[in-house]
């Protein structure tokens, strides 16, 4: 078993991993940049080592500094968390070479899934569906149109040589396809000097559904069901849940089978996630098409919703599996129970184009509600800096049904005062209240198209009866920041103080 674990990360995930270490009697070692010397993840760990200056390249991405820290503290394992070096095959290999257990898959599995093109090849070979598409050998108008018919409409033609939407055209049906193909070819030729066209099925309003898988070194691979993560803003997930509101048992079976095949194909070990696009607009009753997107070879930000509905501890299992122990569960022992929804609370101002916010958390009070879990990396008085991801906390609500879980999450967000900087909480609350979210029809393009109005600040003024509170605090007629004589303590004096 691991004795000393170096946590090569920061913020809420580093705190989360340190808690798992405590439960297992593992000594946790935090690392930090100069910007994080007083951060929560440093305070919660048994030991802490400075990595370097604030820029990630000098600290959390500095493989040399991390390995030095591990050597200095006699760590025997490294947990990379998510982001930073978690999907860096070179880091996993460097840990291995330094005699450290890497809490994650083998370096070659990371490398195989790291390239999107290679991952697509691996998935196809394993019989996992990918978005139908190819570069036809026959590049004539007729050849391209034949390829369009074979991938099915609606479809996309795009420049084989480049991205950025140049030379990309939607083709809804055969009528007019020829003119569209010719114009796409001209644009591709002009933009990239190469008129070769790639043809792909267009998925109009896809849902992002991912399957959590887990494998040990004894040949066992299980899945832990799905997470629906379709509420995304510019490919950044905002709200995640499990189960998916749209998945049928038949579709779930097909998708989890596919995910396990993909994992086995690369000799996967430890926790991983297969991301799929699901086209709920096609194919009724279990025939719904889904397509492999990519595999994340690490723990996911949204892992708590799986932990909540499956009743497991994924980080603990990661540490056990990395130590060479078998998975703590068998497939038949795993069931989904109830519903969990997670909202990511970011330090950003939705009304200003989601501009990241930096500053001090003058007041920060996490809600304590039944069925609500908060994974966070900040405390009141902490400063939110500008160097890293602006994720403050994840609020996860669990209940018997989806409606109850959403109601619970809304109530928790309403009771989560964060003052000193703007957060996206009002945006999250408005999103949870939309008919689209309630009915489960939010697709990955929703927030960037019709959901844009949710970002606007309705600019309501506070109710007039709060004016007295604000003025009293301003005029220091009411004490603030704990400077109160005990007679103002409501638990001492029973009479309210009437402000006039």
């Amino acid at each position: 078993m691991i004795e000393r674990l170096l946590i090569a990360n920061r913020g809420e995930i580093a705190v989360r991993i340190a808690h798992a270490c405590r439960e297992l009697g593992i000594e946790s070692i935090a690392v930090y940049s100069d910007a994080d010397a007083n951060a929560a993840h440093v305070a919660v760990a048994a030991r802490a080592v400075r990595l370097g200056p604030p820029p990630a390249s000098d600290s959390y991405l500095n493989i040399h500094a991390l390995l030095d820290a591990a050597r200095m503290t006699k760590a025997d394992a490294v947990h990379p968390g998510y982001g930073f070096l978690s999907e860096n095959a070179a880091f996993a290999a460097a840990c291995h070479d330094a005699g450290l257990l890497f809490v994650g898959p083998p370096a070659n599995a990371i490398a195989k899934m790291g390239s999107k093109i290679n991952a697509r090849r691996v998935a196809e070979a394993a019989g996992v569906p990918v978005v139908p598409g190819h570069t036809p050998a026959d590049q004539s108008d007729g050849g391209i149109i034949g390829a369009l018919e074979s991938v099915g409409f609606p479809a996309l033609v795009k420049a084989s040589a480049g991205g950025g939407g140049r030379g990309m055209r939607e083709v809804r049906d055969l009528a007019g396809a020829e003119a569209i193909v010719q114009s796409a070819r001209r644009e591709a030729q002009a933009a990239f000097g190469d008129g070769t066209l790639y043809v792909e099925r267009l998925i109009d309003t896809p849902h992002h559904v991912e399957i959590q898988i887990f494998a040990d070194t004894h040949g066992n691979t299980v899945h832990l069901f799905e997470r629906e993560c379709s509420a995304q803003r510019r490919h950044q997930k905002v709200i995640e849940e499990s189960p998916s509101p749209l998945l049928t048992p038949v579709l779930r079976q097909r998708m989890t089978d596919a995910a396990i095949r993909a994992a086995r194909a690369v000799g996967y070990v430890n926790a991983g996630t297969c991301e799929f696009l699901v086209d709920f607009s096609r194919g009724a009753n279990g025939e719904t098409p889904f397509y492999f997107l990519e595999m994340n070879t690490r723990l996911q930000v949204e892992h708590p919703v799986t932990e909540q509905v499956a009743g497991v501890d994924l980080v603990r299992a990661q540490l056990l599996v990395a130590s060479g122990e078998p998975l703590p569960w068998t497939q038949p022992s795993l069931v989904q129970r109830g519903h969990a929804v997670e909202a990511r609370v970011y330090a950003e101002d939705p009304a200003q184009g989601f501009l990241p916010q930096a500053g001090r958390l003058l007041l920060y009070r996490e809600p304590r509600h039944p069925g609500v879990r908060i994974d966070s990396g900040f405390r009141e008085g902490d400063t939110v800096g500008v160097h890293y991801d602006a994720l403050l906390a994840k609020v996860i609500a669990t209940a018997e049904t989806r409606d109850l879980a959403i109601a619970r999450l809304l109530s928790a967000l309403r009771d989560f005062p964060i003052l000193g900087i703007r957060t996206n909480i009002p945006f999250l609350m408005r999103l949870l209240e939309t008919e689209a979210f309630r009915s489960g029809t939010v697709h990955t393009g929703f927030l960037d198209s019709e959901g844009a109005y949710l970002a606007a600040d309705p600019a309501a003024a506070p109710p007039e009866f709060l004016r007295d509170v604000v003025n009293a605090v301003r005029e220091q007629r009411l004490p603030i920041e704990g400077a109160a004589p005990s007679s103002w303590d409501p638990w001492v004096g029973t009479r309210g103080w009437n402000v006039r």
Partner: protein
Amino acid sequence: MSDTPEIIRIGEGVYRVVIDGRAHFAYVAGAGADLWLHWNGQVFHRPFDDERFDRQRTRSVGAHQSLSAPMPGTVLKVHVEAGSAVHQGDTLVILEAMKMELPIRSAGDGIVKAVHCHEGELVQPGVVLVELE
């Protein structure tokens, strides 16, 4: 009919406000004019803005404006002096806080009326650094 609200402080920055027999919870933090208020899931910065308590506020409209420190920090660089012409987005002052640099940029075009800080000075949030006209 609205009565005078009854206000009880029930913890650091937390107030229970009873109006017409109904209790509400308000969270207040900050200092001077730079107050933050949380009520029922909504956050208000500078609620009920009041000029009397607002000598140091940053004005975002009108010809005259001043730029203040958003967080405590050390003044690392002052790029302007009284009389300098500045354009929107120009960096006027660089603050350093928690080893991080934070540029203070002009919100509009104008002339620097006065500089109220010097390099190396430790400044508190809300303190006016540069006045523009």
